[in-house]
């Protein structure tokens, strides 16, 4: 086994946010608090929507203590950071007795409350490749009963990359939280909008296709029909 304290103190698990020199990957240390993520200049410049998403977690005190690593490892579908990380094809860096490995976040979430964290492993960072964030702008909507101290009834993170003339949607990515047991992307909707003209007709098609991709459930927090209806509006 390894010395977990040494690992914790080393740079590998840190609250640093930086761009990797080799390929421009945005690296967010797992123990970075939500408020640091939101305020960090690199996040604001390259992935502002992530900062906005984690700024919806709980209240200010929670955001000063809660970390992005904790939010992802918790494995819940309602995590405010998760849908945005799904939408940006983020990677999760894990360190354990067998060394360091990197897994795409959609493979990291196995099922409700369960992530691919093996015995002795800890998450050391969340990585967003340059190709995933460069040129993209996004938006996160947290739908909850209250504006603070509430868990999302539905969370939606979307981002687009426009063509140079800003007429076409070069790429579109959308991910939902609480629309299934784990956060999920909408491949059919993304296919329907990719390469299309940035016009109302495209957005209507996109909204219709989204409903084919999501599968929310009934819970005490909201009924399935209510969640589907909220998705649509």
């Amino acid at each position, binding site marked *: 086994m390894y010395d977990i304290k040494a690992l914790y103190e080393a740079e590998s698990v840190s609250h640093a946010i930086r761009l990797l020199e080799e390929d421009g990957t945005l690296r967010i240390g797992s123990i970075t608090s939500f408020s640091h993520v939101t305020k960090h200049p690199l996040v604001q410049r390259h992935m502002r929507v992530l900062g906005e998403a984690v700024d919806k977690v709980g209240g200010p005190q929670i955001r000063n203590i809660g970390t992005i690593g904790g939010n992802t490892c918790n494995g819940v579908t309602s995590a405010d950071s998760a849908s945005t990380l799904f939408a940006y094809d983020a990677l999760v860096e894990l360190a354990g007795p067998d060394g360091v490995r990197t897994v795409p976040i959609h493979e990291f979430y196995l099922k409700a409350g369960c992530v691919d964290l093996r015995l002795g492993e800890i998450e050391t960072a969340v990585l967003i490749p340059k190709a995933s964030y460069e040129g993209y702008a996004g938006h996160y909507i947290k739908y909850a*009963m*209250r*504006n*603070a*101290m*509430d868990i999302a009834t539905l969370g939606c993170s979307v981002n687009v990359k426009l063509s140079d003339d800003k007429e076409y949607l070069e790429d579109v990515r959308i991910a939902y939280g609480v629309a299934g047991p784990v956060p999920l992307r909408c491949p059919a909707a993304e296919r329907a909008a990719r390469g299309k003209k940035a016009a109302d007709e495209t957005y209507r098609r996109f909204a219709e296709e989204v409903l084919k991709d999501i599968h929310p459930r009934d819970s*005490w*927090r*909201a*009924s399935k*029909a*209510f969640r*589907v*209806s909220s998705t649509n509006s």
Partner: protein
Amino acid sequence: MAGPGRAGQIHETYKLSTAMDHPHLEGQFVENYELTSAFGTKALGEPPVCSVAPAIRNAVLQATGIGIGQVPLNPHTLFEEFKKGGLLDV
């Protein structure tokens, strides 16, 4: 869910609003002499608490034509009632 006119067991799931949710609110005093009390005064606790829910319920009725007999009037309840009343096409 509770029947008409009763609050019922909403305490477990109903989250009270916080400063982030609260709309602009102004309190106005209308001072008039209350004959039934010894000093012409009225209670200040119950009237503002009890009258709000029915007032909002009736405002929803006036706006949509749908009268709802249960609280809280949260989006979940409105969604079901509006569906029943044919206001929502889902």
